[in-house]
């Protein structure tokens, strides 16, 4: 649709160059990354690129690379994926939270807990099954809640290490950290699905 000279001309435009520049994910350490609380109570990040360039992000999105098998390591820090700003690119990765000062790691950990909201079931008050739907009434680490589960056979997943993950009809996730540690009454109600 366009001949070569035309293409050439367009390419000379300066604003085009950043079209092709992709962000390179960094190894984030306390030396190159400074996490702070943002004005709105979220997490801000000031990062120093290897080139010496300092970038500031009003808010960042932490993501667990291994949310189930290793939630404390390999935390990806990404630009927010907002409607306006398009898809969030990865700024860098924290290999383990421990290398950061206590308050920073707690801030990130809190944020992760918020995002990966997975209440642990501590007590099962009632459990009924009817027409393939299960009705649960449980006390969790986040408070008491009732939920409905469809097809318990495929929505309850027991891991190799004995932890149990379950999903309700809305896609909410619950866990039982150690089914054997549940009280006898609660355990009996769910035994056959584990």
């Amino acid at each position, binding site marked *: 649709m366009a001949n070569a000279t035309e293409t050439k001309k367009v390419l000379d435009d300066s604003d085009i160059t950043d079209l092709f520049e992709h962000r390179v994910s960094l190894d984030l350490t306390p030396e190159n990354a400074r996490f702070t609380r943002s004005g709105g*109570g979220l997490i801000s990040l000031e990062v120093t690129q290897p080139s010496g360039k300092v970038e500031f992000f009003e808010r960042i999105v932490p993501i667990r690379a291994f949310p189930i098998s290793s939630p404390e390591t390999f935390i990806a820090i990404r630009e927010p994926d907002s409607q306006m700003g398009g898809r969030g690119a990865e700024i860098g990765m924290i290999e383990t939270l421990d290398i950061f000062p206590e308050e920073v790691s707690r801030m990130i950990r809190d944020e992760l807990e918020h995002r990966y909201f997975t209440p642990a079931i501590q007590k099962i008050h009632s459990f009924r099954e009817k027409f393939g739907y299960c009705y649960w009434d449980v006390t969790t680490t*986040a408070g008491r809640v009732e939920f409905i589960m469809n097809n318990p056979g495929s929505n309850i997943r027991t891991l190799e290490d004995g932890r149990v993950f379950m999903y309700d009809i809305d896609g*909410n996730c619950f866990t039982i950290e150690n089914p054997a540690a549940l009280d006898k009454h609660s355990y009996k109600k769910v035994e056959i699905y584990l």
Partner: protein
Amino acid sequence: MIPILPLEIMTEKVSAALKAHGIDPATPDMCLKLDQDMKGDYGEVWLVYSRADGNIYRVIGDEVETFPLARMTAPYIDNYTTSNRLQVHLHAEDDPPPEQGEMTDDEFREVKKAYANGGTTVVLGFCTNSVKLKLLAFTGLWERLDRGEEIADDDGIFNQFERACPKCGRMYRDPRNRVCEHCVNKKGVMGRLMGYFMVFKKQVFVVLLCLLATTALSLVNPIVSGSILFDQVISEPTFDAVTGEQLTGLMHEEKYVYIWVGVLTGMALLSMGIGIIQNRTNAYLSTRVTRNMKNDIFRAMQRLSLSYFNANPTGKLINRVNYDAERIRSFFIDGVPYFISHVLSYIVLTVLLFCMNWKLTLILYAPIIPVVLILKFALPKLWKCYSHQWRRSSSMNTMMNDSLSGIRVVKAFAKEDGETSRFYEYATKLYKANLRTQKVSMFIFPVISILVAGTCHAMWGFAGFEVMGERMTYGDLVVYMGYTGMIFGPLNFFTNFTNMVTDTLNSAVRMFEVLDQVPEVVEAPDPVRLDAIDGEIVFDHVNFHYNPNRPILKDISFTIKKGDHVGLVGHTGSGKSTIANLITRMYDTVSGTITIDGVDIKQMEMNSLRRNVAIVSQEVYIFRGTIMDNIRYARPEATRAEVVAAAKAANAHDFIVNLPEGYDTMVGIGTRSLSGGERQRVSIARALLLNPSLLILDEATAAMDTETERLISEAIDRVSEGKTTISIAHRLSTLKNCDYLMAIDNGELAEMGSAEELLEKKGIYYKLWTLQNEQLHKVMEGR
């Protein structure tokens, strides 16, 4: 008083809290209850939107916080797998929104965008996925209310909340009549199922009659062989010691042996005959009932809208058609009749036996309770074992399948030994599961056998004394022995029956769920019929989202005039294909209208629309059949000449005639497979044969090489002379013949105009164009 939108009903507590802070609880337009508190635990936080006050109020308990709408931009749901939060950009008081002033529309857009992303990001609230749909609706409504739109209570956005029963989460049969049938009427399900059988009243009657007859025969049989053959024919005559009445040997003659053995044989033959009749009737009945059920389900599915199929994977649907109908059939054929006959025979047996000798009957009935208990409590364990075993075996199969399908990779990385040991692991797990099942079943059934055998022996012993003491006859003993089987046999069936009922009800509910689904897209009651359309399309403030995703199209308005060739460009996921889906009414808009030739497509007859609008999408499906059949799928009456003409126009003729069987070549699953480009061309021919007034090409040439694409786009230009054509493409070269282009960005119509105009704007089209040219440039320079 402004009526509050039906998103959520405000509770007394919330309105009291608002009142306490001097806010009139009658002014808000809508409110939303979030189910997490600000710490992230379960709790209750209310957001109240009031356009009149220009505020959003956050109500937590008695506390009310005020967020002025004018200072908030870009409400955004930061959603994660299991939690969502509503974020907004809050601007300082001295940072007012920009005003257009001298700026052009495009400049103003950019400025507005920059402003929207400025300020401080604050969190308005958190919620779990249970509130996600409502939260999405809340933000959607918020944006629309901010734009000044008037939203009515019956806006399309509220439909999603009316359809599901709050109790069980299932869809209402009739959204206007908010009664969840599953929760209200369970007997109704059984009744409806019976309806399928009641069509064949005569056959049902015959089957029941046969059952009664066989039950009666099986009850009479031991009496004939015991009380008559043994006592009266074979036994020596005996007499009651007191009254002198003859007790046995009344027919102690040779001829009676022949007669009664003959009667027994006759009964056996009769019961066989009845069995044959019953089975034949059953076969007649069950095959027809299953066919009717499957047919109903399939018809209901065909009627449903595309969104249903997006939500339900094909495998699940096929399973529904086959498995559920089959299970219901087996319940009514193998379950209910036997249940009736077993119950009947139990009642008759109990009465009969207690009359004959109550002590012996007690012995006979004694083990029933332990046997039932064992079955009741041990069988679930066995089922658990079986399901465990089944899971192990299926995961072993999956592993095997996985490994053999990927054998190239296995060999390439020399992982044969690793795979073998992995298989060994799976096989070991399976054998362990097998072993456990065997152990459990080897425990349950012998125990039951011992109980039953013990009973028999106890009976022999006890009855022996009774017979010797002449308190009962030898024949009665034979009768008892004959009945033991009838007592213990059905016990297993009975303990299973409740499960059978639940399973069947599950299947039935699933089946009726499909049958009762209301299609999302329905034809208007009195539709407008159009024989031919000109092809003028108008989008008027169209909003759309695929339930339950985020908004896909936001306030889109445009007009495409008759005969225009329009190109739609934009990033993947920007909403281009959605526009095509809306024009063909695969989905209905959430708000706003689409008109063709001035007629709202919701009012148009579905047939008129689909006959005049043809769509070729990137996903082509070739049905099983000949190429000829595939091309004339939409118009089976088309002549050979027309088919060939369409194929030529789609540039498919050449490759088709080069096939050994030409247009008669069988294609589709399991037969000759066509390449991506060939399938694409067949589907274009299919669309062209319809001779539509409006042609939509949704990435139709994406799977072809540039040369073929050029040929096809030329062909399309030839046939689309005077027709309205909409081309959707990400490869811009596809669109070079378009009269004008529309660039869609993030669900908004960002740019519209000829290619040259758009290039000058330096917007989205310019970016895409530059990116594609850059790649070309690299190739040319050999970089």
